[in-house]
């Protein structure tokens, strides 16, 4: 009985994790490893939270037992040993993950230029094709998105594929993306950029090779209304 209830709860939570912008429904290897890291830390945090709340309850409800450890022991174990056990492995794992996710080997580039309040994408490898507010990506292949801004700071974010990267005027930032299976999802501007920031969104389509060529054969797309 409880098993089924538990399973149902898990299914519900996981179901609630879906969405066109959900980091918890990754659509590519980069986002997948980010989501893994996230889940690991969420579970770990849950355990630690339970531990400390439990200790507080112990201290209040059964002070005689809690007093068996000297004050010094409490502070050394809780304040020094516990963080020493948790933090170094965590930092190491995430540093390695971070390095793995941003390699510098040459891959095809797509330029993303932000301005108030829309995105323009250039595809140098596809005869300079250009699209507005819709990004076409090859499936299963790494690309570098070169992110720039024409006015204020924006931020490029396709949650189901990778983390975000700011578009800073005067600079070029590069974000490595790997699209998974062909499909559609969404992206948005994540840094507040003024009046219409809310609507500075774009569509993302991941294509197989023929699909990509077809999508980019018409040189200029009319901006979405």
């Amino acid at each position: 009985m409880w098993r089924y209830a538990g399973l149902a709860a898990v299914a519900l939570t996981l179901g609630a994790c879906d969405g066109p912008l959900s980091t918890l429904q990754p659509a590519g290897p980069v986002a997948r490893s980010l989501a893994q890291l996230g889940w690991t830390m969420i579970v770990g945090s849950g355990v630690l939270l339970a531990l400390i709340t439990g200790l507080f309850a112990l201290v209040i409800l059964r002070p005689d037992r809690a007093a068996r450890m000297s004050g010094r022991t409490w502070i050394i174990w809780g304040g020094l040993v516990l963080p020493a056990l948790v933090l170094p492995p965590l930092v190491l794992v995430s540093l390695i993950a971070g390095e793995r996710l941003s390699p510098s080997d040459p891959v095809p580039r797509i330029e993303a230029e932000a301005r108030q309040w829309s995105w323009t994408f250039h595809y140098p490898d596809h005869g300079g094709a250009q699209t507005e507010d819709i990004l076409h990506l090859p499936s299963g292949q790494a690309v570098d998105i070169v992110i720039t801004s024409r006015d204020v700071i924006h931020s490029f974010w396709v949650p189901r594929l990778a983390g975000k990267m700011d578009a800073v005027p005067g600079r070029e930032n590069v974000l490595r993306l790997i699209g998974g299976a062909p499909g559609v999802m969404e992206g948005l501007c994540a840094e507040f950029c003024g009046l219409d920031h809310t609507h500075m969104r774009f569509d993302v389509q991941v294509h197989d090779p023929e699909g990509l060529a077809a999508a980019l054969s018409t040189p200029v797309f009319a901006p979405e209304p």
Partner: protein
Amino acid sequence: MTAPRPDIDPIRLHKALTRIWATGPGWQRLAAVNHSVVGVRFMVTAAVFFGIGGMLAMLIRAQLATPESAFLGPEIYNQIFTMHGTIMMFLFAIPMLEGLALYMLPKMLGARDLAFPRLSAYGYWCFLFGGMILIGALFAGVAPQSGWFMYTPLSSDVYSPGINADVWLLGVTFVEISALTMAVELTVSILKLRAPGMTLARMPIFAWYILVTALMMVLGFPPLILGSVLLEMERAFGLPFFDPERGGDPLLWQHLFWLFGHPEVYIIFLPAAGALSTMIPTFAQRPLIGYRAVVASIIVMAFVSFGIWVHHMFTTGIPHMALAFFSLGSAIVAVPTAVQMFAWLATLAHGRPRWDVPMLYIFGFIVIFVCGGLTGVMLAMVPFNWQAHDSYFVIAHFHYVLVGGFVFPILAALYYWMPHVTGRLSVHRLSVPAFWLIFAGFNLTFLTMHLTGLLGMPRRVYTYLGHEGWTALNLLSSVGSFVLAMGFALIAIDVLLQARFGPRFRRDPWRAGTLEWATPTPPAAYGFASLPRISERADRLSPGEIGRTLAAGEGYLGFARNGWQETLGVNITTGEPDQIVILPRPTYLPLVLALTTGLVVLSMLFKNYALAVFASIVVACLFVWGARSAGQPRDHGPLPIGLGLSVPPHPEAATSPAVLAMGVTLIADGAFFISLIFGVVYLWLVAPNWPPVEVIEAGLTLPLVVVTCLFAGPIAARAATVALRRQGAVMPWLGVQAVALLTALAAVVALISGALPDPQSHGYAAASFALLAYVCLHLGVAALFVLSNATRLRAGFIGPRRNHDLRLTTAWQDFTAISGVVAVGVVLILPRMMTG
């Protein structure tokens, strides 16, 4: 001279001291400078601003409750979330902790007031007027709208025309002036105004927390003030500090802002933790365990917190090495936090915990703050940050930290210390349901936001479409926030009821161990009728008994003398009394000064720069005029303070509070200067469109004149001090200083106008202009010091033993000389070095 006899009739003593210390009735309340009055004013005003900020939060949640809501448009929404953040950080959290410290510290340290009562009053008025400017703008519909961290170039004149952004820059800077004055006030008061025998190691732990907080404010606010000044100069006069087209860099703003903004979080948390470290031992019925470990951990926390600001910038594309460094630092901050947490748990474990309303909030604090801390560690991990940054996950995280780490402790403190303020105990009918409403409402609102964020909802959007999967979660959050609001409404009612109907009590209702409960409640204007001698750690006392002996005048200064408001100053380390600090009486000066400062701010807001200059001059004159008769017109020598001791009044002491305050002020000024140098070097190294085409062409004469005069000033200042000691002529040396200062000023102005390229042309010229303007400002202020010295010397307030004025001038001139030479050096030599 014989000691005035201690007045052993408590009632007579009370009347005599009240006559000296009390603030007058009616309009004279505007002249109040007493720390209890000003402290309560700070806290009540901050609570009102919390109410306003909370209502804005309700508007936000109402708008986001359903997708595509037509309730608020983006113009209004953007103002509302910006103002919500700004109000909560600058008009609620900081002033609230300042008010608490102002009210509590003298009472906990066994002093009658703070070191500079007029400065606290000025700080209060600045805070109030700055807050009113911001709120006024909100009602006029011209509130700031670029978010509480005002990223450039969005907040620059090109993308934010209109006065909205200026309101933020000027209004917040006005409030920051208040914060800086409080930081100086608190640092000096803790170091200097304590009960005899209270060494640093015997201070109640709260004083340690506030000392570290105040020092963090001294170092943390200057970068923000600098950033605001530079951005306002860019907006008003076109100096391109942050404009990448002309050699500025938008990321410079982010560095300056977060250099302040990250320590800010700890500035807010530490006093709250100090309150917890005071309350938890009371409810555990035993002294705090790990006093030394806690002191060490707050100092470590303060240091580390200044080194991790970049974790707010993980997605701006900075190099990976830097990411790793700042990520590690951010994780390390968890250690001192954990030490404190476990010291509290250990204290409870070894005590006999007693359950009361404050303990409920302490429970709430532990659950919520730990959760916020854990998500903080998650966010410090760079790859996770790339996903969660700027999403609702971050909103959830920092509300867990700020509400858990500040609002809950403050509510605990409210129930703990309200009886001290009102003299009445609380009636528990409403407080318990109020707590559960707040606790449940908070978690419903913000726990859900973690998930909303991971589902991709960015912060600062005024609506969403409905297909993203965010709809149900947002509705839950909004419902939760209204439950939360009901909880706060109950608390407001509860507080009013208590103040009106709570039962009265004698002394020390909680059986606490700290001195504030030894004062009469509600507190008398003079605080303690006489001052105690402390011979153990000052959180293990029995305030009930001590209170009785002090009221009978059996401590130090248990008498009224000359109508002076007397309290004792002690040696910083030994805690032995070394001076009687005679405090100023109530005066309208702080109010007038703050109104004039407000006029400066308003005239800059409306771009009437002539008026701004005029009002600034009036402010400067008021400062000089206000100081004209401070101190004593003659030497007194050591005066008896009771219990067989005699010490001189502060003007004749070796280190008066004013001398110490100058030191602290110069540290703040130094932080400002170093931030400016950082900015200049940063632009050289990192900004796009460098190096500049045109650099300064100055020749040799002007720089030599500047440097010579910069050094002549401090030398003449020292000569003046020597002359004073030998009873020689001082005036001529003041004259020499004035000439040196004014010559240097003229030469720097000549450098700016003659040799520097147009400051609007490039970030380089703008930054050099800023450096030289900084030097001018310091020379001008130095001249004011000399002017003040001259008037006070004439009036007889400076004498061979009362030489602090001259020492202040010397210190300021030393600083001016050193920073001036560095500034001129950077302006002249850096271009040669960088361009080869």
